[in-house]
């Protein structure tokens, strides 16, 4: 029972911590973020495992973590309001090449991050080639490029 309580408590504490410090706090963008993730797991380990060297204990811990996660996923699917509180909502940061500076500042993303993602995802060269940049719920930046010249887009433009 003790192991189950420990694992559930650690899960809850980390969930609250990372939810409050922002979704980009650990999205593995730099090498150091990755190192930070490793250090955090080291730091939390003793609190969860305690003095035990038992395989059974380790199994119960992992079982608890996974089932709590699955259970929470079930709750999220059933109650969208809970999902919004736990995972936030996506946010548009760049609209038609124009950065929305207030949103950028509050979510801790700068234009550099956006052009990096634009280069990596679509090979774009400049910010004005970005139609939308969206901060997703998992902390990723997704980039929608401006329409290239295609027959469909030409039709659409003509219609507009």
């Amino acid at each position, binding site marked *: 029972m003790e192991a189950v309580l420990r694992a559930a408590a650690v899960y809850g504490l980390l969930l609250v911590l990372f939810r409050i410090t922002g979704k980009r706090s650990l999205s593995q963008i730099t090498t150091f973020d990755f190192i930070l993730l490793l250090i955090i797991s080291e730091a939390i380990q003793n609190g969860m495992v305690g003095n035990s060297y038992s395989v*059974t204990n380790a199994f119960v811990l992992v079982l*608890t973590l996974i089932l709590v996660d699955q259970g929470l996923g079930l709750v999220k699917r059933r109650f969208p309001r809970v999902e919004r509180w736990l995972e936030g909502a996506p946010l548009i940061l760049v609209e038609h090449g124009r950065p929305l500076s207030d949103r950028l500042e509050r979510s801790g993303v700068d234009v550099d991050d956006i052009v990096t993602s634009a280069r990596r995802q679509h090979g774009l060269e400049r910010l004005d080639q970005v139609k939308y940049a969206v901060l997703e719920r998992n902390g990723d930046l997704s980039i929608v490029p401006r329409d290239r010249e295609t027959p469909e887009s030409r039709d659409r433009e003509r219609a507009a």
Partner: protein
Amino acid sequence: MEASRAPDLQIEQDPAFQRRSWRVERIGTWLFVALLGAAVSGLFGSGPLSHAAATVPGVLRVEFQRFSQYQSPDNLLIHVEPGAAPGRELRLWLDRAYLAGVRLEAMVPTPIRVETAADRLTFVFALTEPGVPFTVLVALQPQHFGVMHGRLGLEPAGDGPRLAFRQIVFP
């Protein structure tokens, strides 16, 4: 699930296999939920199902965990009733076979001396106030897994009050 709806995609789907694996997932998840319930109730150590006691009425009582874990902290709580130790010394013994299977971490209160015999260790405690209830906490860690049999009792006399208990130690 229908057969492939994407004829231009190079992909090998297997709907029948997918259905089977979903079923396994569903059953498996419920099985794991049941295991979690067992863990909460103490089937793998610490919890209401695990907590147990053996008693010689009016004399001796030991509280122990039915289910314990390999190299994990565990306690025995031994209560001696007031009438059972009339003198200035209390002599409590534990059998050696049990002690061989655990690492003794601490004993509170600390005995004033330990006497050895072929089959048992006798822990002698000083009583400043005879005739009051006496409790010993034995902190230990199992060093083997499987079934452990423990015996303990009070001296004097080889036929003094004694208790036996059994613990299952998970790996």
